[in-house]
């Protein structure tokens, strides 16, 4: 039993440093309507709905329940939620469509980092007994990884600066991006990372629609077929990992079939410049591949949505005919602990 499943629509918010005037639901609603409008579907037509978000960002328990009210889950819908980036909600929806229980799926995710200090908040996802009490923040952990790369001779500070410059230059063509155009590489935030090596903190949401087989062709002129999708996790403790490598990203890519033929485009969820270096190596991306034409997570990194946006951006490139075979990647956890890779293809032209 195999079914061809495609991303047929994608929408995202304009990502911004603060959205005080909007609730999460208000932030989400336009993107939900965006993907429904693109396909002509209504909520009642959707076979399965799945979302990703985090209570810790929202600062309250069961925060996803209100978003569900915004979806308009009446009459009742078949629905689920992962407390993960929306990329993993997409994975759950993909398996649901594979079983044949549904032909279409709505996937959405959102996160507001602005109400608190996201660097501090993310320390709460570390080992609660031995590590979290020390409050090592997300930039400090990324800096450990960057320094390990430099020490290993894999990169240097000018090369990292070039990654940042390329990302922000590419983002000038992306009206949703939070940071666009040239900006100074900046002062050190945590050595060896400068502000330019780090993602902006921002709020945002994204949604996609998946459809199976002929349904996908009805809903989209050039569907982005999911040729493979897989995700893998690594150990949590940084002390037992080689931070200069990403075996989980490599394994996920292998299982997703990414190495079978070259890709022309890659959307990598690399919030720090140094992480792009790690991922390029693990995913075997050479200079012939367009990496992060959207600007990537260095231009906009709304927590819980940034990974789903990579899948959406890769799909949109296929929809527009700018890519025939794209790789999309999402990550979660400190220093790229968990990684998802999908391969998206358009019909041959």
């Amino acid at each position: 039993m195999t079914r061809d499943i495609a991303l047929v629509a994608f929408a995202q918010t304009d990502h911004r440093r603060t959205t005080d005037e909007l609730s999460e639901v208000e932030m989400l609603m336009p993107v939900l309507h965006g993907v429904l409008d693109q396909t002509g579907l209504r909520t009642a037509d959707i076979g399965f709905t799945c979302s990703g978000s985090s209570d810790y960002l929202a600062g309250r328990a069961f925060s996803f329940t209100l978003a569900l009210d915004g979806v308009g889950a009446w009459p009742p819908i078949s629905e689920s939620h992962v407390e993960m980036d929306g990329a993993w909600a997409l994975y759950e929806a993909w398996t649901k469509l594979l079983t044949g229980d549904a032909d279409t799926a709505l996937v959405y995710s959102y996160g507001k980092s602005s109400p608190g200090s996201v660097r501090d908040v993310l320390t709460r996802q570390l080992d609660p007994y031995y590590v979290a009490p020390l409050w090592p923040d997300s930039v400090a952990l990324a800096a450990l990884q960057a320094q390990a790369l430099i020490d290993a001779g894999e990169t240097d500070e000018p090369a990292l600066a070039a990654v940042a410059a390329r990302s922000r230059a590419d983002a000038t063509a992306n009206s949703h991006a939070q940071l666009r155009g040239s900006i100074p590489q900046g002062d050190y935030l945590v050595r060896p990372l400068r502000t330019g090596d780090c993602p902006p903190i921002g709020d945002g949401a994204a949604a996609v629609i998946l459809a199976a087989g002929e349904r996908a062709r009805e809903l989209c002129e050039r569907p982005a077929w999911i040729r493979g999708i897989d995700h893998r996790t690594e150990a949590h403790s940084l002390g037992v990992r080689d931070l200069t490598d990403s075996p989980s990203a490599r394994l996920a890519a292998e299982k997703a079939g990414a190495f079978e033929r070259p890709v022309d485009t890659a959307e990598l969820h690399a919030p720090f410049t140094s992480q792009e270096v790690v991922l390029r190596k693990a995913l075997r991306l050479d200079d012939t591949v367009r990496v992060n034409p959207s600007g990537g997570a260095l231009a906009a990194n709304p927590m819980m949505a940034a990974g789903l946006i990579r899948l959406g951006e890769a799909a949109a490139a296929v929809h527009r005919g700018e890519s025939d075979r794209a790789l999309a990647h999402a990550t979660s956890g400190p220093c790229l602990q968990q990684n998802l890779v999908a391969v998206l293809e358009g019909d041959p032209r």
Partner: protein
Amino acid sequence: MSKEPVAVTGIGQTKHVAARRDVSIAGLVREAARRALDDAELSWADIDAVVIGKAPDFFEGVMMPELYLADALGAVGKPMLRVHTAGSVGGSTALVAANLVAARVHGTVLTLAFEKQSESNAMWGLSLPIPFQQPLLAGAGGFFAPHVRAYMRRTGAPDTVGSLVAYKDRRNALKNPYAHLHEHDVTLEKVQASPMLWDPIRYSETCPSSDGACAMVLTDRAGAARSPRPPAWMLGGAMRSEPTLFAGKDFVSPQAGKDCAADVYRQAGIADPRREIDAAEIYVPFSWYEPMWLENLGFADEGEGWKLTESGVTELDGDLPVNMSGGVLSTNPIGASGMIRFAEAALQVRGQAGEHQVEGARRVLGHAYGGGSQFFSMWLVGSEPPTS
């Protein structure tokens, strides 16, 4: 196009208690997972993926704990998903794991749900102040009490029914070595004399706060053939959600619950649940939810659920036993509670439920709900594989 049949070949629980101070969160989940693997006679290497669920992260104060738990659950190098659908999460987690097998993405999946409520305070975890929104009114009991009252008014049920459920479930728990509350001196009079908390819900008609974890090994037909003990087969499974608050919502018998049950029965070919289903593990955190859910699940006509309870039909030796394990009323590690219902249903059809085994149980329902009675997840398991 057909789905791969899904079998439960391993089940593991911790002894549920108020506080497991002897283990970390990782130690707790590892214990349940290890027992499930032992039951299936499998090793960590036999597991293709891990699907983990729990209720809000605020209950332990760990954000996205699946990251930290990857090592403890043998997930390194494997796919790991974290599900969160409020109180229904234990059931939803099992269903997400089952879909991985049904879709033939993986052959054998470990699924686990837990809560270590002693790490924090669930009541306050649910009571963070939120602008422009009603709080949960002093914990879950405050939210659900008015809906119990509405049920009593609507059906004319006498106010003695709730205590009958609590008395039954607490006695059943005495037969379940993993249950949290073992009240050896429980009597109906003691339940009825317990303090009123949220009228009409008395202290002894509420669930405890527990530390605990539950794990299952789900596998395909080939995996089931290698199982050392009888597998339980999934005959149907579904999730349904509806909005929290809106004018048309029936809090006494939510449409999402009815739709979810109807979907499960359709998949399993059940036309008359009252006759064709042998027993049920139903999510009853407050005693009155037994008669309420009996109606919502189609075991009784509207307004008639309390009569089943009152007549003893749902007792362990009745003809539709409900919550043979002692239920949520006796054991409530919130995020795991739904999975315990699913796992206990599977134990029954495998004939492995020990002292609380229902003789000849061939088809048993596992049920979970969450949020403001808005998220539902259910499965029906059987001793024989699905025919279609």
